[in-house]
């Protein structure tokens, strides 16, 4: 099988951190800033950053429709934090306009301001027994899952913070900020499946 190519949306945010993890996985990587750079990608990561900013920049270079079209054609996609927000179907405060790809309702900045940002260990069954250390920064939560979308992880209070729907993955936290590559490997297994 050919080596897959995974792109990272590089409009704003911590795309370099994602690329650094991907480079340890022996695959091809690409920064995506313009629609033409989506061509031939097997997977796309929408990184952490400011969802409002990314949404504006996505529109100023007409990336919204091409991303939706490529995902419908089967390109795998993973959103972390701001990326999760952009993948949602509905946002609690209706801004920014999301891509509407995953059947979930999302609340932005669900934990408060920066002083409420936190890190904690999560149990994630699809990654095995060892807990995953998760960093939440002005993080969103998934308020509601619809149409058979699968929950992958939740906080002790029941808030869903990771989910999968077919070839789409969403995490409210930042696996790209820790040294644990298991979520990136899991996404790669989705790309290859």
């Amino acid at each position, binding site marked *: 099988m050919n080596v897959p190519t995974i792109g990272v949306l590089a409009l704003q945010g911590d*795309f370099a*951190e994602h690329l650094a993890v991907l480079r340890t996985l022996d695959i091809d990587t690409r920064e995506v800033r313009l629609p033409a750079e989506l061509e031939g990608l097997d997977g796309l990561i929408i990184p952490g*950053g*400011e969802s409002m900013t990314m949404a*504006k*920049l996505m529109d100023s270079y007409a990336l919204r429709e091409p991303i939706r079209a490529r995902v419908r054609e089967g390109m795998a996609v993973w959103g972390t934090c701001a990326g999760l927000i952009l993948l949602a179907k509905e946002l609690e405060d209706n801004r920014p306009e999301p891509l509407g790809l995953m059947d979930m309702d999302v609340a932005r900045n669900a934990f408060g301001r920066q002083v409420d940002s*936190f*890190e904690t260990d999560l149990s994630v069954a699809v990654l095995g027994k060892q807990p995953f250390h998760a960093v*939440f920064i*002005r993080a969103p939560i998934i308020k509601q899952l619809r149409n058979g979308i699968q929950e992958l992880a939740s906080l002790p209070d029941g808030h869903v913070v990771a989910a999968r729907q077919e070839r789409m993955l969403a995490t409210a936290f930042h696996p790209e900020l820790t040294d644990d590559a298991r979520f990136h490997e899991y996404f790669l297994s989705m790309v290859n499946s």
Partner: protein
Amino acid sequence: MDTGTWQVKVGLAQMLKGGVIMDVVTAEHAKIAEEAGACAVMALERVPADIRATGGVARMSDPTKIIEIMEAVTIPVMAKCRIGHIVEAQVLESLGVDYIDESEVLTPADEANHVWKHDFKVPFVCGCRDLGEALRRISEGAAMIRTKGEAGTGNIVEAVRHARSVMGEIRKIQNMSQDELAAEAKALGAPVDLVQEVKRQGRLPVVNFAAGGVATPSDGALMMQLGVDGVFVGSGIFKAADPERVAKAVVKAVTHFNSPEIIAEASKGLGDAMPGLDIRSLKEEELLAVRGW
């Protein structure tokens, strides 16, 4: 759940990378900045060009103004305290701002000591002119660094000098052997463990933005090409003839900093940029970058 950790402090700055942080004075400004694609705003009473023009003592903003700005936008809100003013920092933390800039743009409250920033849950950004100054601020707890440049001048020359200095010193350290680092740390006036970390990572151990004199889209892209992670624009937006268009254009240029044709397109017909100042025409006491050590 652990809050206020080093990881989440540095992490928020990582989320701002590749973005533009804009100085705003009112909630209206903040909305314009957010709409233009700013990844955060800096709430302050007067933009640096006005602080420079007015003179007198520049202090932390009125909390009412900061709260209005926090309520107006969903992107992170930063605010400035005076160098060494522990209580202004405590007040800003209690308001819930997302980042504090312990800033030389305001009149220093302490000419010997900076705030011990590890005592706070809210993260801090601080200015620097060279690597030693950057590492001293990080050792005090700054989770993000920016060049000082020379704020309120619309002149990029000092920001370039400071970014070149930091990047050049990092390259020098990368070429040093382990046993040369202790003497280098002494020369820089910086802790040796941070100098070792710079060698290991080949960059500052925290996010590093440019600030102080960015006035045009090309200025923003220039700083990105010099290797910074993002850009602060102070007076450059709201002292320009058409703030909305300039704001959007700077954001585009920073995202596409390696694409001259996109920067050219973004730069067309923006109207007058903010009026600039030649740094050499400023008196010693008018320079802001020399505040702090």
